[in-house]
């Protein structure tokens, strides 16, 4: 195990020309100063450098996403959104951030101070730690675990601890309600989420993120979403469950504004509130990025052999596409009730997910290696299924509530 881990913890750059560069760097600059420096840990330096880039870049992501969300919402609602700060309001989030920094950091005197202070950091740290295992391009990955997706699942589950800590320590009944809702929701939706990830893992036979992406390098039809009809279903279950995981409409019960004010972060102010906020948007991008990696080809392009900048632009565009869908849903749909939320998860998603796993197993038995035939049959089944679903759903859609027949 230790052997596997020591290898797996090395960043991917290590396996290619990057390591030589790093070892050279260590030999030339660090060794003269610290003669005892272990040369072999040059790769650790690369890892740290990568992490440094992430720590610097990823917090900027929410900054962009918050503005994007406001602009998208404004478009949906016939508004312009923020327009005053900077050209077209582009600096609005920055201004908001500055405001939050200068606000009073209020700690409820009756609350549990330690937990209250700790909670935002737990959530913040976990949502950023997820980025460590996401391959942004062929070379940009902080740490290419052999258990990458497992690590992501594990880390993102810890977020619920932070939510409960925040809700409990605020000593507010609304916060408590919100945090318990959140706990129930995240724990429940983790199951369909994990099960749909499992379908991918079964097909690729690896937990490593880079290997999962690597298996999708033959253009759009080798993306895992099209590789079998079951992964196609799994993608939608994954996506909906991940919306529930990041607490967004229609699953935003933990912070349902019209019901329980702001849920678990009601009592937070200033920068601590901002940490929740940033974490929420970072999470949103993270789950989209995971979805893209697992199902939509990751950094691989629509055409085989595409590697402009290692596939980074393609990856970011695809992830932002999913983020946009999340925003779209948020500004269109109402919110579910707690029992309906649980119904959806336990009565629909989990059985379907088990069916998916069974189906993927059978599929893997029939088509032992992914060739043109298996992909062709899969796409045909998906096509027929979509047409069928459209016919059935279309019939339902036509059954709109007609204007009620007026009275006598």
């Amino acid at each position, binding site marked *: 195990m230790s052997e596997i881990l020591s290898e797996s913890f090395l960043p991917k750059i290590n396996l290619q020309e990057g390591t030589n560069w790093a070892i050279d760097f260590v030999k030339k600059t660090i060794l003269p100063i610290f003669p005892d420096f272990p040369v072999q840990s040059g790769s650790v330096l690369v890892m740290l450098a990568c992490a440094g880039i992430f720590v610097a870049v990823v917090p900027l992501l929410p900054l962009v996403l918050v503005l994007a969300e406001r602009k998208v919402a404004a478009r949906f609602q016939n508004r312009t959104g923020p327009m005053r700060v900077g050209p077209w309001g582009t600096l609005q989030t920055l201004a908001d951030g500055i405001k939050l920094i200068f606000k009073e950091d209020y700690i409820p005197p009756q609350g549990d101070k330690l937990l209250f202070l700790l909670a935002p950091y737990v959530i913040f740290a976990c949502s950023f730690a997820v980025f460590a295992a996401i391959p942004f391009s062929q070379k940009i990955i902080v740490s290419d675990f052999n258990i990458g997706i497992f690590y992501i699942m594990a880390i993102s589950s810890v977020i619920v601890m932070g939510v409960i800590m925040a809700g409990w320590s605020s000593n507010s009944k609304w916060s408590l*309600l919100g945090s318990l809702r959140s706990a129930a929701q995240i724990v429940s939706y983790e199951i369909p989420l994990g099960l749909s990830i499992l379908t991918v893992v079964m097909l690729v036979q690896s937990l490593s993120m880079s290997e999962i992406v690597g298996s999708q390098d033959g253009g759009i039809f080798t993306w895992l979403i099209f590789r079998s009809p079951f992964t196609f279903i799994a993608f939608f279950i994954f996506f909906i469950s991940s919306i529930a995981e990041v607490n967004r409409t*229609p699953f935003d019960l933990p912070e349902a504004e019209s019901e329980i004010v702001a849920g678990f972060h009601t009592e937070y102010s200033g920068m601590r509130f901002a940490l929740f906020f940033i974490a929420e948007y970072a999470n949103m991008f993270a789950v989209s990025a995971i979805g893209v990696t697992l199902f939509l080809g990751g950094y691989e392009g629509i055409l085989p052999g595409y590697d402009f900048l290692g596939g980074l632009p393609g990856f970011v565009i695809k992830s932002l596409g999913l983020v946009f869908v999340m925003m779209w849903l948020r500004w*269109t749909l109402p919110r579910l009730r707690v029992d309906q939320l649980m119904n959806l998860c336990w009565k629909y998603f989990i059985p379907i997910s088990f069916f998916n796993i069974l189906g993927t197993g059978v599929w893997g038995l029939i088509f032992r290696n992914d060739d043109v035939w298996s992909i062709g049959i899969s796409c045909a089944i998906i096509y027929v299924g979509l047409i069928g679903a459209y016919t059935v759903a279309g019939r339902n859609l036509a059954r709109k509530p007609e204007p*009620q027949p*007026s009275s006598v």
Partner: protein
Amino acid sequence: MESTQQTESKIIELKPFTDEMIVNMGPQHPSTHGVLRLELRLDGEVVREAIPHIGYLHRCFEKHSENLSYPQIIPFTDRMDYVAAMNQNWGFCLAVEKLLEADEKKDFEVPERAEYLRILICELNRIASHLLSFGTYGMDIGAFTPFLYAFRDRERLLLLFEKICGARLTYNYIRIGGVSEIIPMEPGSVDEQNYLDEVKEFLDYFEPKIDEYNDLLTANSIFSERTMGVAVMSEEMAISYGATGPNLRGSGVDWDLRRDEPYSIYDRFDFDVPVAKNIPELGAVVGDCWSRYKIRMDEMKESVKIVRQILAEGLPDGPVMAEMKAVRPPKGEIYFRSEAPRGELGFYIVSDGTPKPVRVKGRSPCFSALSALQELSRGLMVADIIAIIGSIDIVMGEVDR
């Protein structure tokens, strides 16, 4: 020792109920539609009891009225249901006019033109009120966008009101014996034509929008899941609580004062009264939140219909205000009710023959509807409480007065 432990554990198993938590929802809460305070006894998410506490917006309308002359009271009625202030003005004026009718020296008649203007503006106000109800209901259920659509359209209506009476919210437009002339609009003048054209333009724009909103929210499956079959108010219950207006019709009672006890000139117009029906294929039950909400959506269409008829006929010539001396009703009392957007708005006025009333009592439709909340909400979930408050469409200004 061991046996006692066993019995204790058994007792714990036999008592699956958790502790109840008492939570105050409001008076500062995003979706209590003002300053309603609900005392919730929660068992987890389930509401064991919801006790409404009112009075946070009490401004002594009725006591104030005893010290004011009749025309001076009208601005106070604006502040009752500030979302549909035109209808409140009208309700009060109708009551006073009725009281004046008892006078043998009665020397005035509300001019035809004023009646038309009153109905025109009150039906537009009804649309504005129902739009707000629709928008906030969407927001209560969690959809933010319909709210802004509703306010976009309501804004156009408010501009129309502003053009005719100079105010956007508290109009003081309808006066005893006619309507305000503060912005003159000569019969047959260009001003009048322009105004009616603008109203028509709005109706042409707005009528298709109702269907659009129905597609966006009414037909949304999450929305119907949340509202259909929730908090069913039966016919008997609605009548016994005194629920009126859309709440009563949402419970399947076919009753609308505009049609059944026509006041003013409502009998000249042709309109339908939407009444809730069971829609089994959708899951809607008569008296649930969805039915109450849907009645409002349909009523907007009927209001559009009425306004269109007025536009087709055109406003009659003549003055907008009756020639009358000071308002000094004879000794006596009157109770008169009219159909405001939220239900039957009644005014009970006692006069002793002086220019000031002895007693004025407003019968608030929201107050009656709100009283049903406690029974409706028992055993539902926290989210349903919000759905009920939105669906009975209360305005706290009117509840507290």
